Structure formats: structure tokens, C-alpha cells
């Protein structure tokens, strides 16, 4: 079922653009971010991390003068390294020490920490630490890493090519024959620079130690507080009960705050060692150096087409530079394995032969960033269709319609099952809104006048709200060992605990951990509809491991789907109990009771009892409970779905200044199907912000390492997020497909903007540059690169870093 949303205000709480419940406190400056916890703790000590200035080297000495309190790896007796694992034969696991031990593997790696009374004094102390490192040859490109004459980034056994830590393959039966029989093979290479999620709040942590109980409380800016607690407790060898992890207001995450940070472990350790409160507020420079990168990927793909434009077979060699260490819990398989499984996206591809690799280098480790590898997958597929359309002399819209999935459920060659969606419809809606024929007339007129306009389309399927089954599939099957735990972490489910107190107040405790998405508001809307109450009666408690059930947090466009489904189930459970209690008092059957406006009402009569009365009596007249139930109103909601695919079509209209290479976005359209919209304003906000990061990825942002492996883009004067000037106004059209794969009908929407925008922009710029015979195959398409492509008459491609020659040539 697919429809277009009407925009009319519904009778339910869900579906309304309810202003967020989170906002009034934040707007007044009353939010609590981690640095605020530190600022309000005058007695706390401050930590700064000593970081490596070398991409690869052996630590010879670390010395601090008298008066400087410093700790190094040698002090971390018994502290275990981080070790994230997937159960697959091609996967290489490595240890990430909390502080570098003996060797350093990237510029910015933490090798020691200093502690002082204030942040300024900690910085002074940092300046006085002397580090002696014997520099070793560094591996700075994937080509070098696998060349056979590069050093190994880790001294471990690589089952396949050197420095190759994930090497996934899918080769479907009959591929070779299908590929050989095609009328035309279109081969392209697409790539992206390294990029940073760059949340405006960099990382921060405050560890408090309670002498009375021996417990630690870590306030940190996180997307996964429970999993972080597990990781820190594992590393320090303490019981999880000895550690409370709280993520108060979180200043943006975008994936970058879901990975276990060495610094957070070190902070808890030093707090326990000194029995003092300590804080670490990351600088922006540190955030660029060490707080995870992403997107440095090169995809070579070949599409085998019929003359009519049917894509019959797809071959790919996908390479991800995953940096120096393996992120936990999702591992450095996150980019290559997602690309392997999901490359075809919304398109029918029967025959599929893809190799996807993660290769370790001496650069900052990669970790998830909004979209993970999907911006690159979509770039690959959408550039492929535009190039194929040109070569086959077909219409660019028609070739997409021919190949888009239209029957559901659809089984992709990787085994993924795509649920009900509206791929054909979103493309049609977006193209209609874009008015392509009008654009072509304007484009022709502009070219006459020496101006270069272009239009670009991208279609995508965004896998969202996926639970345990999706994470299980990244591994080969395994059994629980008899007496030990497997070393694999398998995320996925969410649980919520819903209670009604004696006054009728409702508290929803969730394992998910929002960081700006307004999840407290949207979950409140879901609960209110089930219980017939209004939002002021509900409080959502999240991101505090002492106060919430164990959960996986907020990432992968999952929280609304999974925590939303769990909240709905919990509320339905509680509503059922309330209906039964009311029926016993008012007469009728539970099914005859409606919950509305804070009361239980016997349908067809004026009889009603307030929920607050029912609630009070459950707790205070327990001996009179008609259902003989327990004297508590509480329910647990558990939801662990296999996933649901949101989908969208983006259309970008750009103008390229061929003298300067500057790209201006004139228009940006999004036809989006995220299923049922729980809060349309929040959904649109996610799309706006997602597209902004897609624009950033496509045109502006790039982390640059020099020839020695030193990151040279470490400030916001070098790394350039868009301002309001660079952002077009985004036009959004919603379609609504209700899929049984999501209990609430909502599909995830957090990443789509970032997934679709780069490809639409690359296609649009390529369209504008068509008179010059050049296209865009590497992002960001900075003015310099666009200008060089025009000048040289060559496609905009990645410029590979020269591979160092072997020290000694073999005879």
C-alpha cells in the first residue's frame, strides 16, 4: 500500500508535527552536555592525552618532568585491549590497546595521559611531556598495503592478502554466462575522500568515583551507553554493576559516538586509580585526528546490460581503507560488508559477483558515519546508470524504471529481503516535481549564454530498523561454546520498560539512546495513542544505565522502528491491563473499554474512570484488585525485527561555474517514503540535515593526509562543513508505504539524506559538464578538481597516492 501523505492534522498523537518536548530546556540554555557536568564539578581534575605525531613508529621513551602527573601503557597493569571480532574466516581481529604499547599506528593515537587541576594546566603539562619515537615506514594507501612490499600494520596472521582484514565475496551461479552474454558492459570507478562525521560537540567524558560504594559514574557523549559500559567493564576487569554510564544531552553523533573509545576507558581507569573525579573535553583538533573517520572507499564496478538497458549482471571490486584499528562493536567490517550485501540497492540484479575488502593502513580508524558505505554504493549505481544511459542512448529516467524493484518482497543476490516500498513511485514523483522537460529547455538556453546547468537523479533503498537477524548474518553460523562466551558481539534488539505510577504518571525507560533526534517526543506520541493520554503525562528516561533496560542505543536509522515498536508493544500491554481493571469496575468486557483523554470509558455509555484512579488503586488497594494481578502497572516491550527498507529519490539541479569550478545547488528535491510518519516535522528535519551532510560529502569535506601520514586538515578552517550559504532549500514530498516489517509502520529516516545526495549531485555536475565530455567519479567535487577536469578534459577521478617502491627489488 503506497499513498501520498495529505499533510492534514490527524486525530492521533502520532502523525502530528508536535513541537519537541526536549526543546524548551535546551532553548533556555538549561541542557546538560558532558562538558557542563565537568564545568559544574569544581573539584574535578582534567586530563589531556599525549598523542602520536607519527603514522608508524616504535615508542622509545615518554618522559614527563617532575610535577607533571602522567600515565602510560606501562601503568595500565591488567587493563585489557579492545578486541572486536566477527566470526568469518576472512576476518582479521587485532587488539587496540587503551594507550599505545611499544608502537604507534596513526597520527593522533593516544600514548599517554596527563592529569592536572584545570584544563589549562593539563594543556601546560601536555606541552612538557617529551616523546621519543623511532619512525617506521607507514602504509598510507590500500594499493601499498596489499602490494606485497609494504610493512604489516599489525603483526598478526593475514589469511589472504597482506593487511587485508575483511575480504568478502559473493558470486552467484550463472554469473559468468550472464555477464558474457550481455550486449554491453559499462565499467566505472567511483571513490570518495576520507570524511568526518564531525558532530558539533566533540567527544567528552567525566568520570566520577564514589568512595562509599566503589562505583564509577561515567558521563560521556555516546550513542550506545549500555554497550560502552560492557566494553569498559571488560577492559578494566570490573563488574558492570561497578560502572554507571550516562549520556546526558548529546551534541550530535551521526555514528561517530557509537564506537568504544580508548579515551573513555582510560578516563574511568585513571579516576579509579586516583579515586577522584576527572574530565576530558576533546579539542576539535583531536576530534579530527582520532575520533574516527569514514568513507575512504574505491569501487570498481562493471554493469552488464542488454541493449534495452536491463542490468543483467553486476561485478564489483570494492575497497575500503579502514585505518589502523578495528572499531568496536561493529568492527572494521562495517563498510565493506554493508557494501557487499547492499550494493544493488533498489535495483533488480540477478547475477552478482562482488569482492569487498577492508584494508588496514596507518591512518585514523574508520567507524560508522551516517550512511556508512551506502553513499558510495548509491554513487556507484547511479553513476553507472547515467553512464549506461549515455552509452546505450537511453533515457536516464527510463533506464531506472526498467531496473527498479516493483515486486515485494524482493530477494537481493546477497540474500537480503527487501520489504514493501515505492521505488518506482518515488522516482516518478520526483521526476514530475523536477519538471525535466522544462529543465532541459532552461539548460539549453543557459548553455547558449555560457552558463552550465545540470540535473542529477539518485534512487536508493535505505535498510533501516534492523535487529539481531541482520547482525547475525555478518557472521558464519556458530554455536555457544560450552563454558565460555563467543567473542562476537551481536547487536540488534531493543527493550523498554513502561510504568504507570500511583498518580497515573507514565514513565518509559528505553535502551535506545537519542542524540538529537527527538526520540523522547516521538516515543511519547506512540505511547499516548495506545494509552489515551496526552504528552505531559509521559516522561521518557534514556541514556542512563542505572535507569534503563539494556539496549543497543541509537544508530543505523533504527531507534524509531525498533524502540518505537517495543514502546508500542509495552503500551498495548499496559492498555490491556487498564481496560481489564476498568471493565471490572464499569461493567462490560475489556474490549468494550476505550482509553481516551486520560480515562477508561465504557463504550456507548457516559461511564468513565480516570486512569489515575485505576493506578492509585492498583498500588494502594492491592487486596481489592479485581484481576488478582500484581500491585504494579508495568510492562516490558521487546522488539527485534529483521529490518525494513525506506526508499527515496533525490533530484539535484546545479550550476557549475566553469571558470572557477564552483558548484551552486539551485534546487534539491527529495521524494521520500519512510512509511508512516510519527512526527512529520522531525522526519523533515532528519532529511534536511541528512542532505546537508550529503552536500558536504559531495562538494566540500575532505580529510587530507600528507606524504608522511600526518593529517593536515585539523581545524574548521581546513575542513569545511557547509554553512547556510552552501545549503539550498530542500523540497520534500512524502510517500507512505506501510510495511508489515515495522510494527508502528514507521521506517527509519536518519541516514537517507546523506545516502542519496552525493550521487544526485555527482550526476548533476556530470550533466552540467557534458559539453566538456567529463564526468564526476570522485567526491568531493571541489572547485579545484572540477576546474582541473574541465581544463584537462578528463573525468574527475581519484588520484592514487604513489606506492612507495620496495626497499630492495627482488631479482
Amino acid at each position, binding site marked *: 500500500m503506497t499513498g501520498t501523505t495529505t499533510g492534514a492534522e490527524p486525530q492521533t498523537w502520532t502523525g502530528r508535527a508536535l513541537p519537541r518536548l526536549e526543546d524548551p530546556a535546551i532553548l533556555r540554555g538549561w541542557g546538560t552536555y558532558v562538558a557542563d557536568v565537568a564545568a559544574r564539578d569544581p573539584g574535578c581534575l582534567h586530563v589531556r592525552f599525549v598523542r602520536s605525531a607519527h603514522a608508524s613508529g616504535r615508542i622509545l621513551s615518554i618522559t614527563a618532568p617532575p610535577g607533571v602527573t602522567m600515565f602510560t601503557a606501562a601503568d595500565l597493569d591488567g587493563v585489557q585491549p579492545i578486541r572486536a571480532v566477527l566470526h568469518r574466516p576472512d576476518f582479521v581481529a587485532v587488539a587496540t590497546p587503551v594507550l599505545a604499547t611499544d608502537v604507534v599506528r596513526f597520527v593522533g593515537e593516544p600514548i599517554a595521559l596527563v592529569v592536572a587541576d584545570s584544563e589549562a594546566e593539563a594543556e601546560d603539562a601536555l606541552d612538557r611531556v617529551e616523546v621519543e619515537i623511532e619512525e617506521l615506514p607507514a602504509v598510507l594507501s590500500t594499493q601499498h598495503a596489499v602490494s606485497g612490499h609494504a610493512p604489516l600494520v599489525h603483526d598478526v596472521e593475514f589469511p589472504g592478502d597482506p593487511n587485508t582484514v575483511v575480504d568478502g565475496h559473493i558470486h552467484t551461479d550463472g554469473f559468468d554466462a550472464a555477464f558474457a552474454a550481455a550486449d554491453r558492459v559499462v565499467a566505472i570507478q567511483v571513490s570518495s575522500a576520507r570524511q568526518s562525521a564531525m558532530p558539533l560537540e566533540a567527544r567528552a567524558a567525566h568520570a566520577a568515583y564514589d568512595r562509599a560504594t566503589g562505583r564509577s559514574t561515567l558521563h560521556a557523549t555516546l550513542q550506545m551507553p549500555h554497550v560502552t559500559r560492557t566494553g569498559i567493564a571488560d577492559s578494566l576487569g570490573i563488574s558492570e554493576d561497578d560502572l554507571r554510564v550516562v549520556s546526558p544531552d548529546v551534541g*550530535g553523533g551521526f555514528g561517530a559516538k557509537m564506537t568504544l573509545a580508548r579515551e573513555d576507558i582510560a578516563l574511568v581507569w585513571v579516576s579509579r586509580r586516583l579515586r577522584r573525579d576527572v574530565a576530558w573535553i576533546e579539542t576539535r583538533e583531536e576530534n579530527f585526528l582520532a575520533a574516527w573517520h569514514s568513507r575512504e572507499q574505491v569501487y570498481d564496478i562493471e554493469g552488464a546490460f542488454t541493449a534495452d538497458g536491463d542490468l543483467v549482471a553486476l561485478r564489483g571490486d570494492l575497497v575500503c581503507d579502514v585505518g589502523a584499528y578495528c572499531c568496536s562493536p561493529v568492527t572494521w567490517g562495517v563498510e565493506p560488508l554493508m557494501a557487499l550485501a547492499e550494493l544493488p540497492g533498489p535495483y533488480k540484479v540477478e547475477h552478482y559477483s562482488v569482492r569487498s575488502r577492508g584494508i588496514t593502513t596507518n591512518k585514523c580508524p574508520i567507524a560508522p558515519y551516517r550512511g556508512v558505505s551506502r553513499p558510495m554504493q548509491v554513487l556507484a549505481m547511479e553513476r553507472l546508470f547515467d553512464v549506461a544511459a549515455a552509452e546505450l542512448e537511453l533515457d536516464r529516467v527510463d533506464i531506472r524504471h526498467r531496473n527498479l524493484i516493483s515486486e515485494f518482497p524482493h530477494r537481493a543476490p546477497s540474500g537480503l529481503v527487501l520489504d514493501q516500498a515505492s521505488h518506482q513511485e518515488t522516482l516518478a514523483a520526483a521526476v514530475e516535481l523536477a519538471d525535466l522537460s522544462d529543465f532541459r529547455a532552461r539548460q539549453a538556453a543557459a548553455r547558449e549564454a555560457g552558463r552550465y546547468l545540470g540535473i542529477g537523479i539518485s534512487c536508493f533503498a535505505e535498510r533501516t530498523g534492523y535487529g539481531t537477524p541482520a547482525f547475525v548474518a555478518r557472521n558464519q553460523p556458530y554455536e555457544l561454546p560450552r563454558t565460555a562466551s563467543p567473542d562476537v558481539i551481536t547487536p540488534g534488539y531493543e527493550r523498554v520498560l513502561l510504568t504507570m505510577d500511583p498518580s497515573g504518571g507514565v514513565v518509559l525507560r528505553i535502551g535506545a539512546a537519542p542524540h538529537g533526534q527527538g526520540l523522547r517526543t516521538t516515543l511519547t506520541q506512540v505511547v499516548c495513542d495506545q494509552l489515551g493520554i496526552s504528552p505531559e503525562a509521559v516522561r521518557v528516561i534514556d541514556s542512563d544505565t542505572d535507569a534503563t533496560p539494556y539496549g543497543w542505543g541509537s544508530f543505523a536509522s533504527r531507534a524509531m522502528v525498533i524502540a518505537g515498536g517495543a514502546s508500542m508493544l509495552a503500551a498495548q500491554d499496559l492498555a490491556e491491563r487498564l481496560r481489564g481493571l476498568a471493565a471490572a469496575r464499569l461493567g462490560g468486557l475489556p474490549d468494550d473499554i476505550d482509553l481516551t483523554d486520560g480515562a477508561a470509558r465504557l463504550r456507548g455509555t457516559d461511564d468513565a474512570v480516570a486512569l489515575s484512579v485505576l493506578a492509585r488503586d492498583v498500588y494502594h488497594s492491592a487486596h481489592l484488585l479485581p484481576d488478582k494481578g500484581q500491585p504494579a502497572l508495568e510492562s516490558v516491550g521487546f522488539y527485534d525485527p529483521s529490518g525494513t527498507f525506506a526508499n527515496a529519490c533525490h533530484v539535484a539541479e546545479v550550476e557549475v561555474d566553469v571558470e572557477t569550478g564552483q558548484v551552486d545547488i539551485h534546487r534539491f528535491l527529495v521524494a521520500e517514503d519512510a512509511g508512516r510518519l510519527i512526527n512529520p516535522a522531525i522526519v523533515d528535519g532528519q532529511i534536511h540535515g541528512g542532505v546537508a551532510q550529503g552536500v558536504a560529502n559531495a562538494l566540500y569535506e575532505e580529510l587530507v593526509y600528507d606524504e608522511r601520514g600526518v593529517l593536515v586538515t585539523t581545524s574548521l578552517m581546513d575542513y569545511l562543513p557547509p554553512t547556510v550559504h552552501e545549503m539550498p532549500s*530542500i523540497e520534500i514530498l512524502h510517500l507512505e508505504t506501510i510495511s508489515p516489517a515495522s510494527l508502528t509502520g514507521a521506517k527509519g529516516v536518519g541516514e537517507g539524506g546523506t545516502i542519496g545526495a552525493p550521487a544526485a549531485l555527482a550526476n548533476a555536475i556530470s550533466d552540467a559538464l557534458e559539453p566538456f565530455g567529463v564526468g564526476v567519479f570522485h567526491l568531493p567535487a571541489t572547485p579545484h578538481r572540477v576546474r582541473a577536469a574541465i581544463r584537462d578534459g578528463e573525468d574527475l577521478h581519484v588520484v592514487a597516492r604513489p606506492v612507495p617502491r620496495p626497499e630492495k627489488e627482488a631479482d
Partner: protein
Amino acid sequence: MSIPSAVPVRLYVNGDRYDVSVEPRRTLADALREDCGLTGTHLGCEHGVCGACTVLVDGQPMRSCLMFAVQAEGSSVRTVEGLAIDDTTLHPVQQAFWEHHGLQCGFCTPGFLTLAAGYLEEHPDAGEAELRDVLSSNLCRCTGYQNIVKATLAAQQAMNGDPDGDTDGDTDTDADVGGEPA
């Protein structure tokens, strides 16, 4: 190296007087946050680009991370905590940001609020292009700016007495939750 001794500084923040003692190198942002306890002012980059730390110094938007506290001696400083009319009434810019979903994570929000409030109070007739220029001073990573622009324009109308100024968008406040949650 010797730690420079602290010097007394008198700050007037949001109408209150603060007599603080700070090192000469202490930034205004740190003094506001740590010495005055006003943590609504946020630090996003500490090198003057992101604008999260914007406060009004004698009515002018300033990067409080690029200013020493001693430079604000005797000045009147207004932070995000000082924008609201009172405990029940938000500043029109705050109200418009709420109604038009002009914030997500909220980390950049204090800087945008002080920037927009300060500019609109001085330039009530600023055009949209001029306001976009002003708003381009600051970075937001969540919203794509669209609703920040919308909210700023709505706030301008509300501040100029246009009764429709705050309800022209598609994110109208629902009457049932028009007030602030308790």
C-alpha cells in the same frame, strides 16, 4: 613556567553582577561557563569558526572563545540564559526555533539564538538575504539550516508585531502542548 596569577574581573551577565577572579589567559567562554556557572554557552571548536559560543557583548554578537574574560571587564554580557522574557515566556527567537523545529541536538543552538536575537534587535528590518548572511556566521551539523532560517524569519515577524509571524510554517504548535512541559 610560572602560572600567571589571577586578576579580578567584574562582569555583568544577564543583568547580574559577577565578581570573578581569573587568569589573564582565561577566555570569556570559560569564565561564563565555569566561574559564572552559565553552561548554556557551548564550545564547539575553540578557534572561532563554529560560533556555538556566541554571546552578546554590549549588544554585539561575539565569539566568547576568542575573547579573554578580562576584555569583558565592565561590559554587559548576554547569554542564552538571558534571552527569555521570564520563566514562562521565551524570547521570540526561542519560541520560533521551538515551533519551527530549528534545533536537533541543540549544541549549536545557543549560538544561533544569541546571534539571531542580537541581530534582529538591532536590525528589525533586515531582509532575508541579509539574515542568511548573518546566520552563515555559525555552523549547525544537524538541521541543514532550513528551519533555522525559517525560525529566524518567523521570529523577526513576531518581534515586529506581526501576529502571524510565528504560525506561518508547517510545524504549528499544537494547542494541547502550547505551554512548556512542567
